[in-house]
C-alpha cells in the first residue's frame, strides 16, 4: 500500500499581478504531522486553501490519496479525504454544536421529496457527543455554538475530522487565538488524529510549538518551498533564518 497521503506538483497561483505561489512541490505521508512555517505572504495559507479545495491553482496538480483533483471545490476535497480547520472561519454560531459537526454531511432519517431530507438529530447528537469526547471536550451537542469558548470551537472542528475520519487534515493556525490550556487541548487532539493515521498539515507562527508537535517542517518563502527539515534536528534559529532568507551572521548583528 502506498504511504503518500497527498502530493502537490509545481503549484502556481496568481492573484492578478501577484504571484502567491511560484511552483510548489511537496508530498506528505499518513501518520505524519507536517509543520508549515513562513513569513506573512510567503504562500502558506494559499497552499492550504488549494489543498482543501477552497481555491484552484493557476497551474500544477494535486493528488489526494492517489486521486487527482480536478474541480477544486470543498466537496471534492472532502470526498477525497481532506478536512480543513481554519482559524478565522469559526462555526455557524447560531446553529447547534451537532449541526456544526455534521454540517454538509448530515445523517438523514427519512428522504422526502425534491431532495428534501429529514435529519436524524438524535443520532447526530449521540455521535457528536462521542466525537467531542474523543478530543476531550464535554459539551452538550445541542447547545448553540455561540455559547462555546474559542478552544471549544476549535475542538468542535477537530471532532469533525475525527468523526469523518479525514485522512489529510489541514489546520491553518488553529491555535492562534487560544489560551495556553486550550492550545494543549488542540495539540493533544492533533496527536490523536496523526496516530490514527491521518496526515496533518499545521500552519503556525509559534516556532517552538511547531517544532515540538511536528515530525517535519516545511518552510515557505516568497511563494516557494525553501527547505524541508526534520523537526527533531532543526532549531528555532535555523527556521527563522530559512524563513527570512537572512544569513546567520547578518542576523547576529
Amino acid at each position: 500500500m502506498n504511504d503518500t497521503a497527498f502530493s502537490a506538483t509545481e503549484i502556481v497561483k496568481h492573484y492578478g499581478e501577484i504571484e502567491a505561489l511560484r511552483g510548489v512541490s511537496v508530498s506528505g505521508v499518513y501518520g505524519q504531522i507536517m509543520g508549515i512555517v513562513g513569513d506573512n505572504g510567503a504562500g502558506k495559507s494559499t497552499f492550504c486553501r488549494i489543498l482543501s479545495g477552497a481555491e484552484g491553482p493557476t497551474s500544477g496538480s494535486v493528488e489526494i490519496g492517489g486521486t487527482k483533483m480536478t474541480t477544486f471545490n470543498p466537496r471534492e476535497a472532502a470526498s477525497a479525504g481532506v478536512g480543513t480547520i481554519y482559524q478565522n472561519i469559526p462555526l455557524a454560531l447560531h446553529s447547534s454544536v451537532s449541526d456544526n459537526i455534521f454540517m454538509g454531511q448530515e445523517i438523514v432519517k427519512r428522504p422526502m421529496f425534491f431532495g428534501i431530507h429529514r435529519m436524524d438529530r438524535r443520532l447526530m447528537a449521540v455521535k457528536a457527543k462521542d466525537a467531542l469526547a474523543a478530543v476531550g471536550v464535554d459539551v452538550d451537542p445541542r447547545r448553540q455554538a455561540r455559547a462555546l469558548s474559542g478552544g471549544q470551537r476549535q475542538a468542535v472542528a477537530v471532532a469533525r475530522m475525527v468523526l469523518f475520519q479525514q485522512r489529510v487534515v489541514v489546520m491553518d493556525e488553529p491555535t492562534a487565538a487560544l489560551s495556553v490550556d486550550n492550545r494543549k487541548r488542540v495539540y493533544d487532539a492533533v496527536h490523536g488524529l496523526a496516530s490514527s493515521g491521518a496526515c496533518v498539515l499545521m500552519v503556525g507562527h509559534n516556532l517552538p510549538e511547531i517544532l515540538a508537535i511536528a515530525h517535519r517542517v516545511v518552510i515557505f518563502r516568497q511563494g516557494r518551498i525553501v527547505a524541508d527539515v526534520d523537526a527533531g534536528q532543526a532549531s528555532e534559529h535555523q527556521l527563522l533564518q530559512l524563513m527570512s532568507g537572512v544569513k546567520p551572521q547578518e542576523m547576529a548583528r
Partner: protein
Amino acid sequence: MESETASTPVGDSTGITATGAHHNQPVVERLWQGPLRHLDAARFGTLGSLVLVLVIESIVFGVINPRFATGSNMQVIGYEVSFNVILAVGTTAALVSNTLDISFAAVAGLSGVLTAVLATHDGVPMVLAIVIAMAVCILVGLINGIVSVFVGVPPFIVTLAMLFIVYGIQLELTNGNVIPVSSQLFYRVVAGYLGPVPLPVIYALVVVVAGAYWLRRTVSGAHVFEIGSNEEAAYVFGVRVPRVRLGVLMLQGLLAGIVGVMFTAELSSATPALGSTRLLTVIAAVVLGGTSLFGGEGSVIGSVVGVLFLGTLQDGLVLIGINPNLEYLVTGLFLMLAVIAQFLRKGKKAFG
C-alpha cells in the same frame, strides 16, 4: 477541561445520555429540555412578549368594540392575514439565509395579472393559467438567484430591479386596466369558505406547517440557517451554498405566485400592483417575529405571530374608530422597538 467548564457553565445542561433520568424530573423541566430546548431564553422572550402584546391588543379592541370579537370579524382578519402569512414564510427563509428579497409583492401581482390575462383574454383553461403563472414566478426567483449568487450583486439590488421589471410587465399586460375573472368555481376553490373558515386560512396553515418543518427538521433547512450564520464556513464544510440560495429565492417566487392567484380569486379580478402595499408589512412582521436582519436566526412561528399582530392592529384600529392612518405610525413604533431589542441583544453597535 476544567477551564472549559469554568468559562462556559455546561453542568446543568443535559447530555443526550440523560434520557433515562427524565422520568424523575418535573414536567416543566422536561418540557424545557425536550420540545422547548430550541427556544433559548432571549428568543423566547422576544416571541413571548409579542404574543403578550397581541393578546392585550385583542382584549383592548374587544372591550372597546364588541364587534371585534365576532366570528365575522375573525373571518375578515383571517382572510387578510392568511395572504401575508404565506408571503412571510418565504421572507423568513430568505432573511434567515441573509437574503433580502423586495420583489415578492410585485411578483404576487404579476402572478394574479398573468392568471387573469391568460384565462380571460387568451381563453387558457384556469388550471393551466395558474400553472403557467406559478412557473413564471419560480423563474423570476431563479433569475433573482442567478444574478445575486453567480454574478454577486447583493440580493436587495437585484430584487429592486426585478420589482420594476415585474411591475412594468404587469402594466404592459393590462394596459393599466382591471382584468375581470368570471369563474365562480375559481372563487369558491381558491378563496371561498370551508364551513365558517375561509379557505385561504387553511392554505396558509398548510404553508406554515410545511415551512416550519422544512426549516427546523430537514437538511436543507439547517443549511439555510448555517449559510445565514456563516456562509464561508458552510461553503468550506461542503454545503452547496449556491443551490440553497437559489432554492430560497425560487421558493419565495412560488409562494408569492400562490398569493397572487389567491388575490385574484378573492377580488374576481386582477389589477397591476395588486398587493404591492404588503411588501413592507410582511418584512416588518417577520422582523417583529424575531427573525434576525443579520441572518442565521428566525422562525416561521415568530413570523406568523408578527403577521397576526399587525393584521389585528390594522383591523382593530378601524373598529374602535381611530384614524386607520395611525396604523403606520404604530407599526413603525413597534418595529423600532423590536429592532432596537435585536441590536441590544446582539451587543452590536455601528460605532465603538
